[in-house]
């Protein structure tokens, strides 16, 4: 298999959009589910929230793998890459942790726990957005 022939830049661009979008979707679904806890639609919202955060984490894994290949294994770096990584690593730890918690806690959710989780996911979405901004700066910003 020709490792170098894989279009890593395109894969990175594609994979990064899953956590960018789905972390916001996960927050919205679970925040709404917590707000409308006893309403009939809450069950569907919780299901959607779980699916969204699991897919966001899966996309995050793809984004990190392709990103590390693009950065030739650089975990930190200078300039925009350094700023990008400053947000990527906490965001990655949080999104995978949030997905694992949400999946494992699905059967023992309470309104308060779901609300606290939603706040964590909102913070995660903010970190992901910041890392995406600096990722965009590397592509489109001034050299």
């Amino acid at each position, binding site marked *: 298999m020709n490792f170098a022939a894989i279009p890593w830049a395109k894969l990175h661009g594609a994979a990064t959009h899953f956590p960018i979008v789905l972390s916001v979707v996960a927050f919205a679904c679970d925040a709404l589910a917590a707000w409308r806890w006893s309403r009939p639609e809450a069950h569907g919202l919780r299901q959607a929230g779980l699916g969204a955060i699991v897919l966001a*984490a899966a996309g*995050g*894994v793809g984004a*990190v*793998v392709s990103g*590390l*290949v693009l950065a*030739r*294994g*650089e*975990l930190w*770096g*200078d*300039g*925009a*890459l350094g700023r990008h990584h400053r947000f990527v*690593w906490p965001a*990655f*730890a*949080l999104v*995978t*942790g*949030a*997905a*694992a*918690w949400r*999946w*494992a*806690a699905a059967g*023992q*959710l*309470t309104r308060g726990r779901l609300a606290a989780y939603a706040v964590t996911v909102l913070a995660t979405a903010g970190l992901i957005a910041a890392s995406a901004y600096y990722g965009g700066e590397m592509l489109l910003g001034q*050299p």
Partner: protein
Amino acid sequence: MTPWKPAPLIAALLASSLSTLGAAGLAHVIRARAARVSHALPAAGRQLLDPAQVTPALIKQGSELFLNSCAHCHGADARGDEGPDLHDLEVSDRRIATVITHGIEGEMPSFAKKHGREDIVAIIAYLRTLK
């Protein structure tokens, strides 16, 4: 109220730890592979320039090398002429070294024959003083 169980929290901590450690491990593998296949400078460390090694003498040496090899295109003050301004560079030491060594096709010649690793480290030390 549903009783609190530690399993989800443990799962979350495990997932976070494993994912970040996995990323660090993958980065190590990629760096090792890149060092093996790269024609760039050998990877003695990811940063060519150890801050502890930067001395006024090294910066002076870099300044002299810059005037001899780089000023013709980048200007004596490195503010740019035919080549770009080199103040406040936001690229890694490795990137600078690679550009000096290999040049940029159609834009900048290679200095691989003229400058070895020590020269390049001195030039980078000088360039980092340009704010």
